[in-house]
């Protein structure tokens, strides 16, 4: 009796797992192929349009929406002065920069006050979104910096800091920018274009591509020359960013199914953001959560809307340069994803939410959250079938090679799309370096990513950890070493 029950259980377990993994892998492959097609189409369409439109006229146009750039800063003393300067030199007429010092423990406040000749103002703070108390609002005595508003507040996290900025803002849209990022001078001119060309739908958010600056040349807060990073860890992140931002998000945006706009670079409609309660400070995935909530509310209201995307590198940031910090970042991303999926589980395969409920959410569930867990579980399953002596080694090896070959193809394709669209890496050596990085990724880097994601799941479900990791920066002014 015991024998037959256990035999059956193991037999069905093996059969079911085989079947599940087969169809799961098939779906993932199909989704990547579709992403390749949609993204190439989206990028080329965008590029063509940008080639012919004259954005300069928008600088004096009454039709261009007003923007508040909200930059939360926590312990950013190292880069704050340069980064604020970069934000103040953007080419857009109707904008202000609101830097929110989120109770930094370093010299962020002192450095900014000194560099920009700031003085404390009397300011009525209208708390439309509930936040931690504001200690003071500063403006510069120097008219050259009239676009700068500096807010000092009690520490409450990134989401809370952005909500303070949204409360202070009076603009049509607010841009959420990481203060440690460098923006392209034309970033907002390019980001408002999708808002302006949309005739009927309400554009509630616009995302842009974030690219890595590691080992690139930066002068006076502006990007001078883009180089492929010297270290493997940074180079592989470049590949990841190209894949995610240029292929993945462009493809999702083309179907109005974009669920995530990076916290480092996003433009959001202020009115709607306030209506739906602003950024949620209870999650570390606040950027994704806001976009998901926007989708959810707009679908429930049955109002035509669009979450648009400008598939162009408009924002540059420094990627983690040590595995320790990178693991913390990825751990946080995993926890953020789980949190957002959990908060909006109502949309899961719910036809009421259209493409979001039927495609985007399930993709994030199966393709982003479940994928590393399944890979991890797959290793155990593989061990079991080895013990059972069920492995057809030739076939197994071929399947592994198939996955490897597909990974190489997909990443090289991403590199190609980058090449024909924005041509950021001018040196031939950089291209070769990036290609070699791709060849090693599945063996060396990918297992680490899977492990960090598994650990993120463990931290979320078992340890109930919901905090942010520390991010140590070397500063943009570090000169790139010669290769």
């Amino acid at each position, binding site marked *: 009796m*015991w*024998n037959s029950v*256990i*035999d059956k259980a*193991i*037999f069905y377990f*093996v*059969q079911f797992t*085989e*079947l599940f993994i*087969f169809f799961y892998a098939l779906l993932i492959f199909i989704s990547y192929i579709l992403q390749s097609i949609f993204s190439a189409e989206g990028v080329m369409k965008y590029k*063509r*349009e940008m080639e*012919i*439109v004259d954005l300069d*006229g*928008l600088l004096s*146009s*009454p*039709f*261009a929406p007003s923007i508040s750039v909200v930059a939360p800063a926590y312990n950013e003393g190292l880069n704050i002065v340069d980064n604020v300067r970069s934000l103040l030199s953007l080419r857009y007429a109707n904008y202000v920069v609101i830097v929110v010092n989120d109770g930094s423990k370093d010299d962020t406040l002192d450095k900014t006050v000194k560099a920009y000749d700031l003085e404390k103002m009397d300011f009525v703070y209208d708390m439309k979104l509930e936040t931690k108390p504001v200690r003071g609002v500063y403006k510069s005595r120097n008219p050259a910096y009239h676009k700068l508003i500096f807010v000092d507040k009690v520490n409450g996290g990134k989401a809370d800091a952005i909500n303070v900025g949204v409360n202070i803002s009076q603009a049509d849209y607010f841009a959420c920018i990481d203060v440690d990022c460098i923006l392209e001078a034309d970033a907002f001119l390019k980001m408002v*274009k999708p*808002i*302006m*060309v*949309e*005739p*009927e739908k309400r554009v509630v958010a616009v995302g842009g591509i974030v690219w890595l600056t590691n080992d690139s040349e930066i002068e006076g807060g502006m990007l001078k020359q883009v180089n492929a990073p010297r270290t493997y860890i940074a180079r592989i992140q470049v590949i990841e960013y190209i894949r995610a931002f240029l292929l993945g998000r462009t493809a999702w945006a083309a179907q109005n199914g974009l669920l995530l706009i990076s916290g480092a670079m996003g433009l959001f409609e202020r009115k709607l953001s306030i209506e739906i309660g602003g950024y949620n400070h209870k999650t570390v995935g606040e950027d994704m959560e806001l976009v998901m909530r926007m989708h959810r509310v707009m679908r429930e209201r049955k109002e035509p809307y669009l979450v648009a995307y400008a598939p162009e590198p408009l924002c540059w940031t420094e990627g983690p340069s040590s595995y320790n910090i990178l693991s913390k970042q990825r751990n946080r991303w995993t926890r953020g994803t789980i949190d957002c999926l959990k908060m909006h589980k109502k949309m899961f395969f719910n036809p009421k939410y259209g493409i979001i409920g039927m495609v985007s959410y399930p993709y994030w569930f199966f393709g982003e959250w479940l994928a590393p867990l399944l890979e991890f579980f797959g290793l155990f399953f593989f061990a*079991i079938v080895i*013990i*059972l*002596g*069920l492995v*057809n080694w*030739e*076939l197994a090896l*071929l*399947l592994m*090679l*198939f996955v490897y*070959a*597909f990974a*190489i*193809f997909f990443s*090289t*394709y991403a*590199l*190609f799309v980058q*090449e*024909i669209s924005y041509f950021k890496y001018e040196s*031939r050596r950089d*291209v070769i370096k990036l*290609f070699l990085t791709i060849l090693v990724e599945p063996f060396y880097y990918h297992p680490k990513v899977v492990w960090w994601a598994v650990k993120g799941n463990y931290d979320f479900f078992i340890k109930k950890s919901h905090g942010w990791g520390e991010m140590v920066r070397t500063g943009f002014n570090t000169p790139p070493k010669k290769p």
Partner: protein
Amino acid sequence: MDFFIQAHDAMKRVAGTSQKVQHITAFISEEKLKYGLYCCIVGFLSVASVILFMILLRRTILIKQAKTAKILRSKYETLLAELMSYIYENGKIFEKKELSVYLNHEDKTRPFNRKILLEQILLMKKHVSGEEASVLTNFYKKLGFEREAVKKLKSWSWYVRFEGLDELILMETTAINSIFHHMTKDKHQLVRVAALRALILRGGDWQPTLIRYNYPLSPWEQYQICDALSKKQAIQLPDFTPLLKSLNPTVIKFALKMIQYFHSFDAVPSVIPLLKSENPALVEAATEVMKQFGMDDEELVSADLEVFELV
């Protein structure tokens, strides 16, 4: 310990059973499956290698092309300058047969050379006017660029259609406004708005076109029209009131915005009926205009305009 021994035994038994059971790939023979996988692996790796090769080759070609383009640009720049001075030296515009003195066969036929030549003509046209401009236009026509531009307007690609239109607008050829009228019905927003801009700038009858405009006007199109109107050197402001009769609500909203933007007080009588519109967005926009012209809430109410719920 017993449990693990028993489980291990069970696994072995299952292994024996499952070897007799059909797997999900059983519909295809193992040989065929392996062959398929081999093909896919070779295919993916080959495509990846080709892509890498293309990236590197493309760079080489681009560098080479840039060098050739630089030489050609300089050559055509001199040539165009000479052609423009021809009229002063000879008192007439050059004949078609005289072109061969300036241009060789390759310049006239090779697509890359023609592309650079066209770029140079268009670039120069932006900076000249009067007789020099007509010499350039003449040259442009004689080389068959005008015919090609008109052909481009029929392309399936919106980008090519836009290019053709842009060329014709810039070169101020004899291409008549009817072409632009036709292009205002194009499927692509950027082509439509370029045609509308052309109509406005060339003094064409743009208002009836806009009144009958079938597509919703995006803020981008509105901005482009407004920009063209600002650039058009006219003594009098255009009258936006005819647009208020359009069946397209976005056109009416645009007209209201323009009335507000240009402070066209004369348009007020035409705006008042819109306060009774069935479209709440239009009522809101009309109310905004009325308020800007100093009519307060009380006046709007006392005017018996049936907008009590809005004011």
